[in-house]
């Protein structure tokens, strides 16, 4: 019994390696691996398959630059020593930038975002806060009419409230950082220090304005027709090639051309005189024969001709084309095919 299960395990491992498994088979394999834990990490079948798979491999093509860049970005995340701290680090600069732009209104927030202070430093701040509270209470007791303004004040607003006392008049000036002193807001609005009304965080009033500024409305560009896109490609791509269609069968006359830019990997087929097909039964399929791998025509997409006259179809190459040698159109069953046969080809365009 055990041998049969082991044999089945081996079958599934081989099938998985060669063809892949269905969901049911994957579950079955999982159950069997539980019974034979020694085979959990076995790769003795995958390795020979990988070696066989190295045959006929064209590795001349390098990774596309954009893909390479994406992988490096993946690597940045993957090799981050601490993903959580990475996130914090990533978010911190954003917070600083955001708050930094509003530095004159909420300097206290900057301190909170930037650093984590040791306890003894917080203790100092606590004592300072307690002193402020004591001062506020003292002022309240002596000058109760000022209470509402004090209650509204942040650090910057406190200054004018206590301006009556010589000690505190100096405080705001000395507390100004050079940066704050240089900010246009600070320079432009000395009143904010002098007058309690304007000192009530004028920036706070401004801030919602900024926040509410609507994103510039992007008006969608009008969709170009296939003919316009084709013309655009011809005029913009220096490497564009153009070749004419010829009928693969003598009984039909096919007119038109192909334009293709290898740099942009983009092109258009223009055809005239193609027989109309019943779209529920048949379709045309475009093929690109790459010079580097002529035996493997790359599908360029399927299209239907439902009316007579000229049609223009964008080429949708399923793989990157190294150097096109020939384009072909075949007549296939509805939905298209993975591989075609020579007798299905109805038109060719040689480069």
């Amino acid at each position, binding site marked *: 019994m055990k041998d049969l299960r082991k044999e089945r395990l081996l079958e599934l491992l081989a099938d998985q390696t*060669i*063809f892949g498994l269905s969901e049911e088979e994957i579950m079955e394999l999982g159950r069997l691996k539980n019974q034979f834990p020694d085979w959990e990490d076995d790769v003795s079948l995958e390795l020979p398959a990988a070696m*066989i798979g*190295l045959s006929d491999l064209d590795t001349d093509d390098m990774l596309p630059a954009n893909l390479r860049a994406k992988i490096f970005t993946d690597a940045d995340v993957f090799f981050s020593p601490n993903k959580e701290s990475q996130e914090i680090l990533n978010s911190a600069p954003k917070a600083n930038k955001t708050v930094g732009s509003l530095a004159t209104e909420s300097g206290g927030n900057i301190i909170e975002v930037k650093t984590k202070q040791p306890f003894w430093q917080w203790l100092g701040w606590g004592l300072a806060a307690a002193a402020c509270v004591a001062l506020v209470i003292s002022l309240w007791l002596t000058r109760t009419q000022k209470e509402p303004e004090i209650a509204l004040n942040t650090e910057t607003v406190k200054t004018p409230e206590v301006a009556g006392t010589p000690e505190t008049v100096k405080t705001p000036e000395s507390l100004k950082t050079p940066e704050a002193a240089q900010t246009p807001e600070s320079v432009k609005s000395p009143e904010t220090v002098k007058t309690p009304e304007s000192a009530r965080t004028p920036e706070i009033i401004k801030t919602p304005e900024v926040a509410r500024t609507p994103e510039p409305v992007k008006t969608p560009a009008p969709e170009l027709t296939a003919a316009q896109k084709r013309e655009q490609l011809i005029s913009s791509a220096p490497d564009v090639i153009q070749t004419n269609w010829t009928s693969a069968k003598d009984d039909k006359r096919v007119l038109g051309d192909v334009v293709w830019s290898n740099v942009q990997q983009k092109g258009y087929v223009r055809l005239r005189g193609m027989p109309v097909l019943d779209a529920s039964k048949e379709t045309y399929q475009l093929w690109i024969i790459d010079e580097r791998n002529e035996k493997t025509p790359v599908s360029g997409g399927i299209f239907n001709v439902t009316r007579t006259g000229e049609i223009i179809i964008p080429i949708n190459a399923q793989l990157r084309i190294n150097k096109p040698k020939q384009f072909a159109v075949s007549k296939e069953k509805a939905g298209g095919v993975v591989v075609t046969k020579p007798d299905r080809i109805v038109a060719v365009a040689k480069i």
Partner: protein
Amino acid sequence: MAQIILKRIASGDKSAVQECLDTYGGLVWSLARRMSPNSDDAEDAVQEIFIDVWKNAARYDEAQASETTFVAMIARRRLIDRLRKTNRQPNIDSLEDVLAEPSGGKDTDIQMYVEAKEAAQAMKNLRPEQRQILHLSIVQGFSHQEIADALTMPLGTVKTHARRGLLQVREFLGLGDKDFEKEAAV
């Protein structure tokens, strides 16, 4: 020198990533293009494969295989899984053309990899139908159903030939488990 890339990756040496891409980028890209329905899919697959390579780098055992084979194995695993999930077929060669040409490829096609030569040598020991089916499935990317249709062979027979062929190649390459080698005897 290439053999130390995965060890460096496993130890968290990010500077090895560039070398990894330089050395195996073309290999992974070629495999992905061969086994993906389109280039967008191939690009997504390549990203996933390299993450898989980094995750599994610590499992690499140089006594078992070269880094090239290991990376190709990780790539194949991911590509087969993607095909299975999307239920799509790769963009593949014409089966008629493939069948018209003997399997195994030209020497020039495989000179880049010693491993490919070894595998090709091992394949020569297989029965013709086993060799053909393994080539069609692993190298050309055809499904078992497509092979069964093309060769007018029952699906079960295709699978059996493929399994036995692979087990024998494993044995010839000296990668097999002793117990299983006996069971794989045909």
